[in-house]
C-alpha cells in the first residue's frame, strides 16, 4: 500500500512541475503594430514627380522631442522623399510641425494638423490591440505673411490600417 502512495506522490510532483513551465507570452515583432502615418513628398510644380526634402525634422506642437521618421527611430533625415510618423491616440488629432532646413541652413517650420476617427483591432494575447485611424484629413495651417514651404497636404488613403502604402501626399 505504501508503495502505491509513493507512485501517486511521484506522479503528482512530476505533473505539478511540468505544468508550471508555460510558453513565454512575448509579442513577436512580425505581428503588426499600430500603423504609422506615411507621407510622401512631391513636387508642387509637377505632382507626378517625387521631390526630396533637403533636411527634415518633425515634432508635435508643444513637444521638444522630435518624432521618429522611420521605424529605425531616426528623428532627422536628409534628402528624404517619404516618412512614417506616429499618430497620437487622441480624438483631437495630431498637430505636427514640419521643420525643413534648406541647403543654406535656413529653417522653415510649417504646421500640419491631422484629424481622424479612432479605431482598434485585436492582435493577440501578447501584443494586445493595435490602433487604426479612419477618415484622415490633413490641414496646413495658414501663415501671414505667407512663407510656407508646404504648399498642400492631400489625403491619398483615408484609412490608416497598415504601413503598406502612403496615406498623405505633401507638395512643396
Amino acid at each position, binding site marked *: 500500500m505504501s508503495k502505491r502512495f509513493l507512485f501517486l506522490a511521484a506522479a503528482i510532483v512530476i505533473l505539478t512541475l511540468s505544468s508550471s513551465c508555460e*510558453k513565454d*507570452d512575448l509579442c513577436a515583432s512580425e505581428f503588426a503594430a499600430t500603423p504609422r502615418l506615411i507621407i510622401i513628398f512631391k513636387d508642387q510644380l509637377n505632382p507626378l514627380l517625387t521631390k526630396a526634402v533637403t533636411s527634415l525634422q518633425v515634432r508635435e506642437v508643444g513637444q521638444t522631442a522630435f518624432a521618429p521618421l522611420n521605424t529605425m527611430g531616426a528623428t532627422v533625415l536628409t534628402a528624404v522623399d517619404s516618412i512614417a510618423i506616429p499618430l497620437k491616440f487622441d480624438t483631437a488629432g495630431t498637430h505636427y510641425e514640419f521643420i525643413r532646413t534648406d541647403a543654406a541652413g535656413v529653417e522653415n517650420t510649417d504646421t500640419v494638423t491631422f484629424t481622424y476617427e479612432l479605431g482598434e483591432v485585436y492582435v493577440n*494575447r501578447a501584443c494586445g490591440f493595435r490602433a487604426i485611424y479612419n477618415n484622415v484629413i490633413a490641414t496646413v495651417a495658414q501663415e501671414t505673411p505667407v512663407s510656407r514651404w508646404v504648399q498642400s497636404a492631400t489625403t491619398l488613403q483615408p484609412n490608416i490600417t497598415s504601413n503598406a502604402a502612403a496615406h498623405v501626399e505633401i507638395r512643396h
Partner: protein
Amino acid sequence: MFLAITAVAQTPESTIATDSVAFKSTYGLRIGIDAASLLRTAIDDNYTGFQAIADYRINKRWYAAGEIGTEQVDQFNERIDASTSGSFIKLGADYNFYQNWLDMDNMIYAGMRVGYATFGQELTRYDYYQDNRYFPIPTNEVSQEFSGLSTIWVELQAGLKVQVLTNLYLGVNVHLRRSVVQNQPNTFNNLYIPGFGRTYDTSNIGVGYGYGISYRIPLFKK
C-alpha cells in the same frame, strides 16, 4: 510517469489463487472530485474551480466516464487583462489496460472525451501595440463583456486509479485536447476556456491534469 506505471504493474502478490477460487469484480457508479482544481483554488488567487468526476463500469475493461465542472480564471498579460468564467461537461469512455491480480481493483487507463464549455469573458484592461514611444501609450481600463461563448473539443486522457481503501480510489490523469468548434467574439479571442484551459495563438491544442478522489457506490459483483 512510465517508471511509476511499470512499477505498479510489477507489484507481486504473495498468494497465488487456485483454480477453484474465483474473484468477482465490483460494479457500480464511481463518483468523486478533482483535487487539482480544489488545490489550485486554494493556492492561486486568480483561479476558482470545481470539478466532479464519475465513471461507470460496463465490463472488465470498459468504463463510461465523464466530468462536469466550473472554472473562473483571471489572466494578467503585458497588454491585456481579462477574466473568463463558465462551466463545462465532458463525456466519453476509459479503457483499463491494467491486469488486476486477485481482488485488486486498480486502473491504468486511456480514454477519450468530447467536451463542451459555455462561458463568458470580460476584458478589463488593454494597451495598444506600438513600435515607438513618442506619444504616451494609453491604457484602457474597461469592462467589456463577451457572453454566450462556447467551445467543443476532443480530449485524450491517460491516468491511473488506485484503490486505497475498499471502494475509495485515488487517481492522477493527464489530458491532451484539441478544440474542434470555437465560438469566439468578433473583436477579441477566447483566452481561456473552462475545462479546456488556456488557449494558444498558434495552435488549438490544450493540456491539463487532474488528481481524482472518488468513491465507488457498489451495486453488484460479477
